[in-house]
C-alpha cells in the first residue's frame, strides 16, 4: 500500500525530490588555497580570492574535483569528462564576488541512482539527476547588533557538491531513507562528513502533491533544511499545506519556502515573481574542466567497499538483517566489527559488537571513533570465550574490567584469577561442599523435586566464584546428586 495523505477530497499522493548540498572533504577551498576547518575564528580562513578582491582569479583545487568524481562513482553515475564552470550572478553581502561559481549547463557528474531500504524491508531505487561542484557563500549574522549585520567569509569558496535527485520519492519515509543512504555513501567514500548540525550537509526539499494517476502539479522548494528528521517533517507539513490550498479551490504557486522547525510549518520566502534572474554564463576565468578517462579509472580502482556491497557480504556471513543494518550504517562501525571478527566466528563477533559493546557506547556516551575497548582487545576476549578460558558470564565481567582499566582481557583474567575451572576434582570438591551445606535440599531433590537442580547449579557457580565451567558443573552435579 503506497503512502498517501488523506484530504477532504480523498487521498493525495506526494512527490518529493531533493537537492542536497554536501561540503567536500578537502583541506582547502574549491578555488583558493584557504583552509576549510569548521569552527575557526570568523574571517580567519579567507584568501583575497574568497573575499572577491580586485584582480583575484580562481584556480581549481584538484582534490575537490577528485572528490566529486569519487562521489559520482559511488552513486554509480556517469562521469562527464568535459564539464564547465558557470557564474551564477546575484548580489548579497556574504557573496563577495557578486556571483557564485557553479556548474549550470555542464555538470561533472550525470545520471546515477541510489537503492534505499524502507522500514518494511522493501527496497526502492531513487534516481540521481546530476551532481555538480560549486562554491559556498559566506555567512551573514544578523543577531549581534541592533542595526548591523556581521559577515563571516570562512565558508566563502568552500567546495560543495550539489546532488540533485529525480522526483522519485513518494513519502517522508522515502525522503528520510534517501538522505540517510546518501549520507552513508558519502561517509563511506570520505567525500563529505555528513555533519548536518555543522551545516556540512543541507537539503533543499522539492514537494508537490497530486491525485493518483495525475501528472506532476506545481512544486514548492523548501530551502536549507538541516536534519533528516526536519526533512521528513517538512515534506509532510508542506504536502499538507498544498493539499489544503488545492482543496479550498486555490492554486499552489511555485515559490521558495522555509521550514519553521519550532512550529512545524513552512513559510513563504520568495515568490516566483521575486525569483532571481541568475544570468548564468560560462566563467571566463576558468577553462572547461577536461578529465582523462585513465584518471577517473584510477579513482574508481581506489574506491572503498560501499554500503550495498558490504551489506551483501555480511548477509552471506549469516548475520541477521538487523545486525547487518546497524553494523554497516557507519563505516567506522563496520571497520571495528571486521577487526573484531577477523579470523573469528562472525556471528559471535556481531553479537558482542551489537550487544555489550553498543550498550557500553550508549552508557558511556562514547563514539565508535573513541571506543572504550579496542577492537583488538574485544577480539582477544572472543578468543578466550571460544577456547573455554572464560565462560560467557565471566566474559561480561572481563569486558567491564577492560572498560575500567583499558587492559588486555588476557591480563585481566590472569590478574584477577578469572580463569575458568575445568579441573574435575576441583569442581567435585565444590559440589561436595554445596551438598554438605544443603543436606535437606539434597534429600528433597532425591525424592523427586527435580526443579531444585537449578538451585544446585547456582550454588556451585557461586561457590566457585563463577569460574567453574558451567557444562562440567551440570554434568558432575547430575552424577553426584543421583
Amino acid at each position, binding site marked *: 500500500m503506497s503512502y498517501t495523505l488523506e484530504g477532504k477530497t480523498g487521498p493525495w499522493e506526494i512527490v518529493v525530490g531533493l537537492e542536497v548540498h554536501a561540503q567536500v572533504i578537502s583541506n582547502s577551498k574549491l578555488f583558493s588555497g584557504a583552509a576549510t576547518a569548521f569552527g575557526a575564528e570568523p574571517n580567519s580562513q579567507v584568501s583575497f580570492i574568497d573575499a572577491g*578582491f580586485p*584582480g583575484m582569479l580562481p584556480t581549481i583545487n584538484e582534490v575537490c574535483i577528485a572528490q566529486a568524481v569519487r562521489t559520482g562513482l559511488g552513486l554509480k553515475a556517469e562521469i562527464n569528462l568535459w564539464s564547465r564552470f558557470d557564474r551564477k550572478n546575484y548580489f548579497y553581502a556574504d557573496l563577495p564576488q*557578486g556571483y557564485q561559481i557553479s556548474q549550470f549547463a555542464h555538470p561533472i557528474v550525470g545520471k546515477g541512482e541510489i537503492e534505499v531500504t524502507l522500514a518494511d524491508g522493501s527496497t526502492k531505487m531513487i534516481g540521481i539527476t546530476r551532481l555538480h561542484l560549486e562554491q559556498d557563500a559566506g555567512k551573514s549574522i544578523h543577531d549581534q547588533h541592533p542595526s548591523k549585520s556581521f559577515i563571516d567569509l570562512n565558508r566563502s569558496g568552500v567546495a560543495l557538491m550539489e546532488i540533485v535527485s529525480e522526483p522519485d520519492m513518494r513519502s517522508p519515509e522515502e525522503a528520510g531513507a534517501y538522505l540517510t543512504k546518501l549520507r552513508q555513501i558519502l561517509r563511506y567514500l570520505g567525500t563529505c562528513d555528513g555533519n548536518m548540525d555543522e551545516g556540512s550537509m543541507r537539503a533543499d526539499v522539492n514537494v508537490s502533491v497530486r491525485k493518483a494517476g495525475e501528472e506532476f502539479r506545481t512544486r514548492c522548494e523548501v530551502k536549507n533544511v538541516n536534519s533528516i528528521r526536519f526533512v521528513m517533517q517538512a515534506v509532510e507539513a508542506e504536502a499538507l499545506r498544498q493539499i489544503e490550498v488545492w482543496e479550498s479551490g486555490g492554486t499552489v504557486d511555485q515559490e521558495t519556502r522555509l521550514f519553521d522547525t519550532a512550529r512545524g510549518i513552512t513559510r513563504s520566502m520568495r515568490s516566483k515573481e521575486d525569483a532571481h534572474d541568475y544570468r548564468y*554564463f560560462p566563467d*571566463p*576565468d576558468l577553462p572547461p574542466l577536461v578529465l582523462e578517462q585513465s584518471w577517473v579509472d584510477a579513482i574508481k580502482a581506489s574506491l572503498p567497499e560501499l554500503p550495498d556491497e558490504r551489506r551483501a557480504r555480511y548477509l552471506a556471513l549469516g548475520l541477521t538483517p538487523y545486525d547487518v543494518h546497524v553494523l554497516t550504517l557507519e563505516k567506522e562501525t563496520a571497520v571495528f566489527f571486521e577487526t573484531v571478527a577477523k579470523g573469528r566466528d562472525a556471528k559471535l563477533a556481531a553479537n558482542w559488537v551489537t550487544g555489550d559493546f553498543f550498550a557500553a557506547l550508549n552508557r558511556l556516551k562514547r563514539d565508535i571513533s573513541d571506543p572504550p575497548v579496542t577492537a583488538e582487545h574485544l577480539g582477544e576476549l572472543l578468543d578466550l570465550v571460544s577456547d573455554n578460558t572464560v565462560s560467557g558470564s565471566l566474559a561480561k565481567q572481563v569486558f567491564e574490567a577492560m572498560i575500567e582499566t583499558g587492559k588486555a582481557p588476557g591480563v585481566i583474567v590472569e590478574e584477577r584469577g578469572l580463569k575458568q575451572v575445568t579441573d574435575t576434582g576441583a569442581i567435585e570438591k565444590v559440589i561436595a561442599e554445596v551438598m554438605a551445606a544443603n543436606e535437606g535440599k539434597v534429600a528433597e531433590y532425591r525424592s523427586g523435586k527435580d526443579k531444585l537442580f537449578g538451585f544446585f547449579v547456582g550454588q556451585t557457580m557461586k561457590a566457585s566464584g563463577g569460574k567453574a565451567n558451567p557444562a562440567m558443573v551440570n554434568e558432575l552435579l547430575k552424577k553426584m546428586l543421583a
Partner: protein
Amino acid sequence: MTRLTELTLAQARDALKARTLTARELTQAYLDGIAALNPRINAYITVTAEKALAQADASDARLAAGQGGPLEGIPLGIKDLFCTEGTRTTAASRILGDFTPPYESTVSGNLKRDGAIFLGKLNLDEFAMGSSNATSAFGPVENPWSRANDPAKRLVPGGSSGGSAAAVAARLALGATATDTGGSIRQPAAFCGVAGIKPTYGRCSRFGVVAFASSLDQAGPIARDVTDCALMLNSMAGFDPKDSTSVDVAVPDFAAAVARGVKGLRIGIPREYRMDGMPAEIEALWQQGIAWLKAEGASIVDISLPHTKYALPTYYIVAPAEASSNLARYDGVRFGKREPGADLIDLYEKTRAAGFGAEVRRRIMIGTYVLSAGYYDAYYLKAQQVRALIKRDFDLAWEKCDAILTPATPSAAFGLDEKHDDPVAMYLNDVFTVTANLAGIPGMAVPAGLDANGLPLALQVLGKPFDEETVFAVSGAVERAAGFTAKPQVMA
C-alpha cells in the same frame, strides 16, 4: 649631450650597465618631467617619487655590484589597473576609493623582479572602458601631440591606456604597462605615436589586474619603439599558475626577433578591413606599409576575414556581459567606496551610483541585459557563436599568410570635446583592433606616418597565437622603413 629622457629603453639599459648613467639620475630626470608636465597631461593618477628613488638607489647598488635584472634601473609607469602592493590602485574609478592592494599583480611583479623602477600609476578610462581616456574619474589625459592647423585644440590620447601612451610619448616614462580588451593598447599607442603590443591571450598573467572582460583582457607594453616593447614583454610574459587562462609555453627572446626581417614571409591583407568612408590618408598609409614590406622581401597575399563586420557588435555584447559580472564585487561591503544606505539594497544602489561613471554604468546595464533570461540566446550565445567564426576566419587565414597588416585606427587622434555624445561613434575606434581580442591573437601598433595635420598614424600587425616573434619581426621592418622620428609638441 642628449637629454636623459631621450634615451630608448635599450639605450638606457646599456648606459646603466656601463655605469655611464645611474638609475637615480635617470629616475630623477623622469620625475622632473612628471613634475613639470603631468599637471597638464594628467597621465599619472599617482606618482610614487620617493619609492621610485629608493628603488633606483637599490638598482644602482645592484648594478655597481655587477648584478641586476634585464630591466635593472629602468623607470616605468604602471597602468592603474594593475594592483601594486602598498600603492593605491584606482582603475580610474571612484568606486575603489583609496584601495591599496596588499598584493602585487603578476605582471608588475615580474617587472620588479627584473629590476624595473615604478614611477607611479597611469591614468586610463574608468575600468579600461573607453577609447579616449575621457571616462576616467581622475580627469582626461591630454595627448602630447597637437594639430598643426589648430595647435590649441586639446586632443585625446586614445584609450583605455591613454595615460600609458601619453606618458611614453611625452617622455614621462621610459615604458609603460597597459592592457588591451578591444584595442586599449594599440589605439592609444597609435594616437600618441608610440609602439604597443597586445600579446596572445594567455601570454601574460591576468592575476592582480582589475578585470574588465576576462576572456578578452590581456596585458602588454607600450614603449618608445618596437625593440623596447619586446624587451618589456620578455619580462612581463610567462606562465602563472595563479591564472587558469595563462598558458604554459616558453617565452622566446622577443627582442631578438625584431631585427629578423620579413624576407620570405607572407603578409595577408584582409579585404574586409577596407571600410566605407575610411579616410584617404589611412588607406594611403596602408598601401605604403604594403610597399615597404614588399620591398623588404615579403610576399603580399590578399586574404578574407569574412566575419569582420560582426566583430564590433560581438565585442560589445561579450565585453559588457563579462564586465557586468566582474564589476559586481564593487558593492561597498568589503573595500573601496561605501555610501551608507538604509538597508543592503540601498547601500548597493547608492554606492554603485556614486562610484561608477556613466560609461561603466552603461556597459553594466548592456551586459546585464544581454545575459538576462529570454535574451541570453539572442545576444550572448549568438555572440559566442560569431566569436568562434571570427576566430575561424583567422585560423583559415593562417593557411595563406604568416602575419596580417592593417591600419591600427580609422583616424588620427580626435579632440577631447568630440564624439562623447555618441557612444557608438566612440566604439568605432576599435573597429580594426577588436578582432584580435575576440580571436585571442597578438597585435601590435607601430607608428608609421603623420596625417595632414601632423598627427601620428599607425599600422597594425597581427600574428598567429603565440607567434609574437613574427609580429615583432614584421613590426620591426615597418618601423625601420617608416623611419618615424616625429615628436610630440609637448615633451619633457
